[in-house]
C-alpha cells in the first residue's frame, strides 16, 4: 500500500465512519479528527485493513477551558510509511473523579503502557485496560500531576525547603549596604 492508496482508502473511510475529518499535513503525516465513539472502530479498521500495525504513542492533552481531554493516537504503517494521528476529545472531569474512556488494548498491545501513563498523569480511566493501577507514581498521593489545574511550582514551594546560603562574600556585601536584590522567583516569566 503506498501513499496514494492510503489516501484513497481514507476517502472510503469517510463514508464508513461518521463525522470524521481527514487533514493531510505532509507526505507522511495525516491528521484525523474523529468523535470519541468512533475512534475504536477507526483504529480497528486502520490496523486490520490499512496496515497501521504500530501504535507509536497515545498522547493526552488537557484543555481545561473546553472541559475536555484530547487523546491523540499516533499510528504508523510500515507498508504505507505514513503516520496517522487520530485526535479525539472526551469530557474532562474534576481531579477527584476519573474521566472515562475505552481502552484500545485489544487492538494495540502497546496501548496498555500509554493508557496506564495517562491514567496516572491525567486521571482518565480506560475501561478494560489490563493495568489500571499506579506504576510510576506509586508513592504519590496528590492529584494527577499533569492536569493543568495542578500547580507544581506551588506544590514544590509548599513541600520542600531550599538551601540557605550565607557565603562570606555575601555577608561582606550586606555590611556595605548591598546584598541580594532580585531573587529568581521574583521575575519568573
Amino acid at each position, binding site marked *: 500500500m503506498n501513499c496514494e492508496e492510503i489516501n484513497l482508502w481514507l476517502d472510503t473511510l469517510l463514508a464508513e465512519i461518521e463525522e470524521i475529518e481527514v487533514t493531510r499535513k505532509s507526505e507522511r503525516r495525516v491528521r484525523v479528527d474523529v468523535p470519541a465513539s468512533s475512534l475504536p472502530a477507526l483504529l480497528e479498521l486502520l490496523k486490520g485493513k490499512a496496515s497501521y500495525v504500530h501504535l507509536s504513542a497515545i498522547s493526552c492533552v488537557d484543555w481545561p477551558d473546553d472541559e475536555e481531554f484530547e487523546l491523540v493516537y499516533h499510528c504508523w504503517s510500515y507498508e504505507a510509511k505514513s503516520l496517522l494521528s487520530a485526535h479525539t476529545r472526551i469530557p474532562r472531569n474534576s481531579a477527584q473523579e476519573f474521566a472515562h474512556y475505552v481502552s484500545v488494548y485489544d487492538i494495540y498491545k502497546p496501548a496498555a503502557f500509554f493508557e496506564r501513563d495517562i491514567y496516572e498523569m491525567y486521571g482518565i480511566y480506560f475501561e478494560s485496560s489490563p493495568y489500571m493501577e499506579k506504576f510510576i507514581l506509586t508513592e504519590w498521593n496528590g492529584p494527577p500531576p499533569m492536569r493543568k489545574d495542578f500547580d507544581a511550582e506551588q506544590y514544590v514551594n509548599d513541600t520542600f525547603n531550599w538551601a540557605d546560603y550565607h557565603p562570606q562574600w555575601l555577608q561582606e556585601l550586606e555590611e556595605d549596604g*548591598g*546584598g541580594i536584590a532580585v*531573587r529568581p522567583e521574583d521575575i519568573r516569566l
Partner: protein
Amino acid sequence: MKKIKYEDIGSILNPLKNLQFFARKPVTEPLGPRPAAEIYRGFHLNDMEKCIGCSTCQKICDNAAITMVKVPHLKNDPVNGIRNLRPAIDYGRCCWCALCVDICPVGAIELSREYVHTCNGDEVDSYFMLPQEKGMHGTVEEKGWTKTETNDLLDRHRQKMGEMAPEERVDNFDEIVDGFTPEQAVLEASRCVQCGMCHDSCPTHMHAPEYIRAIWKGNVEEAVEWMYETNPFSHVCGRVCTHRCETACSLNQTGLPQGSEPIAIRWLKRYAMDAVPHERIKEIAASKKSATRTGKKIAIIGAGPAGLTAAFDLIKQGHEVQVFEALAKAGGMTRYGIPYYRLPDDILERDVDVILSMGVKIQYNTRIGKDIAMEQLHKDYDAVILAIGLQSGRSTRIPGSDHKDVHSAVELLRKIGSVRDDIKAEKDPGFEIPRSAVVIGGGNVAMDIGRSLARYQKQQYGEVNMTITAIDAMENFPADDVEIKESLEEGITIIPSRGPQEVMLENGRVKGLRTWKVISVFDDDGRFAPQYDESDEQLFEAEMVIEAIGQMAETDLLGEELTEQLEWQRGRIKVTEDGATSVDWLWSAGDCVNGPDVVHAVADGHRVAESINEALSVER
C-alpha cells in the same frame, strides 16, 4: 565491514593473541584534572566592569539559579544603562547550559574551562558564587564558552521603519517616518529583554517594559493604559521624545562585532498610541479620574507639556484647574518649537484634547503680568504653577550679533509655528527666507531650524544652502544622531569644531560668519573654556546667521515684588526637588527649571502636581 562467522571457534591458542595488548599504549589518564576543551562550559566568569546589571541572564535561566546581588561599590547609573546589580550563581541549580552567555546583551558573562569544585558537607555556601573575572576559585586564566556572533540569541537589529526619501521630504513639512506596521511593532517589541533600564532612565519613569510587553502580546489598549499611568503626552513623546530610554537600553551596545541597536521604544509608543482610537484613549485617561472634588483651585501659567501634565494630574486628583496661555493655542514649545515634519499639529492636538476632555480649562491669549497680574492669581487660586518654558534664545554675543539679520532659533521657530495656527499653507513663515544661512549650535534646536529653513529654501529657491556649525566635535554633538543623519541627507552642511568669532557685515547686510578651529572645548577641570587655533580661520558666507546655542526664560511677568521675594540661582528660580519655590503658593515646573526637553517637562509636571496635592491635602 567484516561479516562475522560465529561458528568459527578458532584455535586453542587464540587467547595468546591477547599478549599483544601488553604492547599497546595504556588509555589511562594521569591523575588530576585534564585541561578542558576550548569551548568547555565550566564555572561562570563575569566581567564586572562590562556587566550592566540588566538581569537578562536571570530571566533566561531555566533553573532559577541566578540571583541578582547589589554590589554597592559599583557604578549605579540607570540613565546611562548601568546598574550595580551583578548575577550570583547557585551551583545547586545551575546546569551549565550557557543560555545566560548566549543571551547576555553585552557579553559580560562567560563560562570558564574550570570544572572541579568539591566541598565538605558543611561548606555548601561555596555553591553560591558571585562570578568575577577570575572565576570560582580566583585562578582561571582561560575562557571556555563565550559569546560569538553565531550563538548570540538576541535579535540585535531594529525593524526597519518606512520613511520618506530625502528628496521627497526636503521641500515639504510632511511627517518623515511612517510608524510601525502592526507586524513590525510586534517583532520590535519581541526584541525587548525586559531589563527595565528604560523605566529607570526615563525622567517620568514610564512603564516601558510593561507596555512593550503589552504590544508584544498584541494588546495595544493595555499598552496605552500603562502609558497614561505616567505620561499624558504620549502622542508627543512617541514622536519627539529625546528617548533616554533608548540610550539606556541594554541592547544599545557598541562593543559587539554584530552590532546592537536599542529597542525603538519611542516608535513603539507612537505605534500603540496611533493604534488605539482617540475616543478610547479618552476613556482610558478618564477612568483614573477621582470622583470626589476637593474644591481647591489651581492656576497654571503656560499650556506646555509641564503645565498641562500638572493640570492633568491635579484634575485627576479632583482639583479645579485653570491654565493661562499667552499664545493662541496649547502645546507650548511642542507646538511653537518643534517643526511640523517631526510633530504634526493634529497629533499634538490629540494629546491636548485628551487633557481638555478631563475638564482642564485653558484661557488663551492671556499673558500674565500684562493681562492679569500675578497678585491677582495669588488671590484667586490656592496654588500657582509657573510653567512658562524657555522662550528666548541665548546669544553668542560676538561682534555683529546684534544685527537684525542675526536671529535666535526659538524666535524663528515660533514664527514658523504660529503660521500654522492660522493657515494650513506652509509657504510663508512670515519672514523673509534667506538664500543662504548659517546656524550656530549643534543641538536639536539647531537641526530643527536648519531643516525648517532648508525646506523653505527648497520651496522658494529650489536649492538648499544651509550650514550648521558648532563648537563641538561631530561625535559630541548634543543633537540626536538621526537628526544629524537626516540633516546631511537633506543637503545641509554640518561643520563641527568651529568657534564663531564675528558676524561679518558688508554694506549693512550680513555677509557671513568668521570662525576659528576649536582645539579643545573644556579645560582640565571640565569647565567650558574653548581653545582655538587662530591660524585656521574660515568664513561661512550667509545672508542670515541664526543662533541656537541655548534658551532662557523671560521672567519679567513675575513683577518686581515677587522677583524680590523669590530666591534665585544662576538666573533661574530656585526650586526644591518637588518644584516648590521659596514662595509658598508658587511652584515652578518645566523647561524654565529643568532645561529644554518634553519628557523632563512631563516629569516635572508630575512632581509639581504631587507636591501641590500634598500641600493642599495638609491644608485641608
